[in-house]
């Protein structure tokens, strides 16, 4: 608490001082600052190399990259935003984009990305970047969410293996499968839901259950209320099913993050980032399947880090050149290879071993391109929506009455929207 307060106060206090006195300006060179999150080592190396390549290739634009630790990224960006000291280019965690756009810090990218580039991007990338009809952010990669499974364990339990997202297990089928698997399991826990992960995971991974049941986190028509949507009978029913899995002892607590790789469980509800580790542990036994269908077809999560910009005028054009550079198929592939995520462009996907035709993670591309992936609500209220849903998830996990837990989340969300005069 006190440290973050300090940052805010220091930034408020020092916002009068500025640090752009250092470099001698050549009039024809445009200097831009770029902030990115410091991801895994491989990711960091790629973005640093990309900036160096761009500066080399584009002598009249000079980009200075600053990497900021992922954990405190949003707090630091928010502090800089309050101080009016945001860089021209910055990476944002996808669902926070709308809040920054609403705060008026971001410039729309419409018209700065050529049509053939926009048409080649995954539809999920466009969907995530859009706020009030304009594009404010563009991702170089997207994420994939599904069920990893052990083929042998499934065949022992006599399970049907779904062939694709249209063929996903129904929720009833999945519950029966859990019971069948548990019958042959030492401790009865056969499913890993990554309960060891921190906050945002729960919204990312389990709001698709609501959408698959025909409910949602909020009424997306105007984003004015969650009432009757997040606490709709369909939502209560879906979350009750999830609660039954959790309370029925089918879910491993996964405190060591090793439930799936050590063979304690046969199923793991996880993202693209686990593929390398899981494939290493299970080899040919590893299967990737869509999440269960709660009635309206399987739904899955999407979204990851996106680039946005605050620059205007001539500097906007220079910043857009950098974004276009990052979105060249070769650069997209370089980044996706480094972090294992889904490349944002079809042209890059075609050349990807994992995501190309017949690749082991092709399912993630199908989910993102064929309408199974749902972006998190594109509203500035998202930070509150996700906090409320996470609280509801924890309460439901701990045995709270589902309807009451969802009602509380609805009240918190609707109160926030009212406090902000509808985020209009």
């Amino acid at each position, binding site marked *: *608490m*006190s440290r*973050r*307060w*300090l940052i805010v*106060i220091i930034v408020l206090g020092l916002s009068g001082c500025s640090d752009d006195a250092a470099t001698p300006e050549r009039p024809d060179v445009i200097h831009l600052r770029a902030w990115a999150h410091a991801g895994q080592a491989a990711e960091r190396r790629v973005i640093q190399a990309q900036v160096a390549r761009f500066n080399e290739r584009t002598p009249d634009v000079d980009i200075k990259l600053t990497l900021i630790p992922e954990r405190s990224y949003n*707090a630091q960006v*928010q502090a800089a*935003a*309050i101080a009016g000291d945001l860089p021209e280019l910055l990476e944002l965690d996808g669902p926070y984009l709308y*809040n*920054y756009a*609403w*705060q*008026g810090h971001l410039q729309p990218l419409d018209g700065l990305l050529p049509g053939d580039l926009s048409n080649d991007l995954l539809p999920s990338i466009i969907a995530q970047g859009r706020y009030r009809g304009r594009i404010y952010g563009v991702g170089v990669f997207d994420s994939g969410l599904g069920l990893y499974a052990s083929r042998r364990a499934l065949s022992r339990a006599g399970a049907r293996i779904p062939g694709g997202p249209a063929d996903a297990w129904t929720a009833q089928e999945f519950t029966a499968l859990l019971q069948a698997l548990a019958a042959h399991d030492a*401790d009865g*826990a056969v499913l890993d839901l990554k309960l060891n992960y921190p*906050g945002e995971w729960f919204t990312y991974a389990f709001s698709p259950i609501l959408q698959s049941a025909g409910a949602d986190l909020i009424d997306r028509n105007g984003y004015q209320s969650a009432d009757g949507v997040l606490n709709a009978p369909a939502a209560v029913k879906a979350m009750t099913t999830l609660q039954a899995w959790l309370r029925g002892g089918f879910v491993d*607590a996964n*405190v*060591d993050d090793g439930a799936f790789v050590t063979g304690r469980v046969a199923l793991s509800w996880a993202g693209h980032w686990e593929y390398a580790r899981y494939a290493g542990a299970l080899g040919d036994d590893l299967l990737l399947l869509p999440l269960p269908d709660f009635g309206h077809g399987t739904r899955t999560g999407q979204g990851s880090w996106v680039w946005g910009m605050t620059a205007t005028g001539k500097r906007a054009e220079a910043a857009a050149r950098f974004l276009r550079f990052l979105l060249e198929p070769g650069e997209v592939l370089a980044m996706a290879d480094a972090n294992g995520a889904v490349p944002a462009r079809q042209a890059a996907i075609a050349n990807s071993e994992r995501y190309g035709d017949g690749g082991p993670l092709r399912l993630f591309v199908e989910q993102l391109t064929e309408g199974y992936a749902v972006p998190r609500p594109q509203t500035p209220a998202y*930070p*509150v929506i996700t*906090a409320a849903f996470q609280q509801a998830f*924890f*309460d439901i*996990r*701990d*045995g*709270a009455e589902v309807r009451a837990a969802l009602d509380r989340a609805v009240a*918190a969300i609707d109160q*926030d929207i009212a*406090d*902000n*005069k509808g985020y209009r």
Partner: protein
Amino acid sequence: MTRAAWLFAAPALLGLLLFVALPFVLAFVLAFTNLRLGSPLPLEFVGLEQFHRIFSDPAFLRALLNNAVFALVVVPVQTLLALGLALLLNRRLKGLALFRTLFFMPVVFPLSLVSVVWILIFAPGANGMMNAFLETVTLGAWQPRDFLHDPVLALPAIMLTSVWQGVGFQMVIILAGLQAIPGGLYEAAAIDGASRWRRFWHVTLPQLRNTLIFVVLVTTILAFRLFDQVQIMTQGGPRNATTTAMYEAVQAAFARQQVAKGAAITVVLFLIVLLVTVLQRRLVRQEREIA
């Protein structure tokens, strides 16, 4: 005070003003507004609305209760344990430095690290270390529990972690207090024929009085600031069983960007800690006058 005295005190006073007084005044003012982090909407004064909201929020009321229970249990337990450890380590033992280091070590570890280690210790299922230990000592009568998700056991689990982590600090302070007691007092008592127990009761304890008052005060304040373990081990759950005022404040201000609500919670927390501290000092002082 002379000018020189002011000059010498200036760095510390400036620090206090800048990092304690100013943030508190800011928090106090913000608590009466509707400030949200980064909101483009105009700042409005909403009077007591934020206070009205937090006091009608069951999570916040539960947080205050949890803080109180935590303090009521941890302060006496941790102080007594620290006293015991200090007495044990205040004698001539082989490898004394090693023991002192071992008991002090958890204090040096970051709380976040300690919390992660204790999550592993409290792992559910029969293979969890704590479950396995309890099963062994109860000769198999213990049924494995998921400590951190058990409405009854979650807060005690956090208390245990906190005591384990914090007791070394109090131990060192009490140890210093013990070593400041003049040896002559014990000699005189021994000559008077006082037993070990009476020497402890009539020499050690009265001599440690100021040290113990300090330790109890600091532990109480730390108990009300409980946050790290909750954030990492339980996120306030299960169903608010371990939430604390500080956790609620951070959740409001930084997860939901409701800075004004967070500020209101910290103001209430500050007043409670102030009240408890003043009360404690009152009680202790009165005793001293009687004695």
